[in-house]
């Protein structure tokens, strides 16, 4: 196919995409106007039904928790795939007798001090965001990612060898399994005790306190474990070769 014909074909395809897009955009509600009934219904129902003030968190971990369970297992599958790929390649190279040497520049003093300074506060922030997921914006996913940020900062600060010495991978695998299995167990508990998967089985408590909202804060914690475990596992598998190379050098 000549470039000119290809260009003509692309233009036709783009026009075909643009036309329905313009029609759809023209039919949108005006900015800031919400037409659907679901948000209004949830806004009325959640505070009294679940004793929770973070409406998004309650929606994600209760009213459409089956969706969230699916998303969690997507993340689990993705992290598993990455890990298998990375480990497979490492085994191949080691079997071939290659010495794995990765270039890892010495961290400079600015990165080191900034990293060391921020690791602690970031971990506290991560725990705060997870623990208050049912009271204020945030929750397991956001807090879990912040914890991964703390891990990366520790690496940037040059604590990689310390991370290596504790052999993080098996612990991270267990963490991830607890996270994924915990959510599934919550679902089963609902099925057994209340007759529907992921139905609330815990006392609801007083709205606005840490121990309230039934299963929602528990779900936040297990999701945080799963997210942090999955990302940290992939990151540490990525970093493993670099660390291996460094250990052989020194």
């Amino acid at each position, binding site marked *: 196919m000549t470039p000119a014909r290809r260009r003509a074909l692309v233009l036709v395809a783009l026009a075909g995409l643009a036309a329905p897009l313009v029609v759809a955009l023209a039919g949108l509600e005006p900015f800031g106007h919400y037409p659907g009934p679901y948000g209004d219904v949830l806004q009325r129902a959640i505070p009294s039904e679940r004793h929770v003030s973070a409406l998004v968190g309650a929606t994600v971990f209760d009213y459409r928790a089956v969706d969230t369970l699916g998303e969690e297992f997507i993340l689990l599958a993705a992290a598993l795939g990455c890990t298998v790929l990375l480990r497979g390649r490492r085994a191949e190279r080691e079997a071939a007798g290659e010495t794995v040497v990765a270039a890892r520049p010495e961290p400079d003093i600015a990165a080191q001090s900034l990293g060391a300074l921020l690791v602690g506060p970031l971990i506290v922030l991560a725990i705060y965001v997870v623990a208050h997921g049912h009271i204020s914006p945030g929750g397991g*996913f956001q807090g879990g990612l912040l914890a*991964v940020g703390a891990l990366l900062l520790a690496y940037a600060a040059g604590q990689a060898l310390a991370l290596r010495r504790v052999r993080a991978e098996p612990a991270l695998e267990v963490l991830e399994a607890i996270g994924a299995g915990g959510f599934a167990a919550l679902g089963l508990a609902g099925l057994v005790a209340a007759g529907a998967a992921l139905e609330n089985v815990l006392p609801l408590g007083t709205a606005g306190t840490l121990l309230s909202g039934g299963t929602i804060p528990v779900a936040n914690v297990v999701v945080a474990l799963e997210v942090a475990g999955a990302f940290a596992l992939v990151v540490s598998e990525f970093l493993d070769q670099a660390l291996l190379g460094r250990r052989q050098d020194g």
Partner: protein
Amino acid sequence: MTNLQLVALLVVALTGSATALTREPLRQAAVAGIFGLALAALFMLVQAPDVALSQIGVGGIALPAMILLALAKIREHGE
């Protein structure tokens, strides 16, 4: 739409275009991180703090980190 939201939309459009126009992957990872944080600011300004927090985690931490790690791995194999 408030002026602040308009400004945030413009910043998102600018940083998004900058991400697409940056050709070198290493720089692109950094520019994509800034684009992600601009998106987070926009989400915050349209009153979606939950999404903004997720966006900070994904766009500011996870995505640039994964790109950098993948780039490091590719270069290691290329040498």
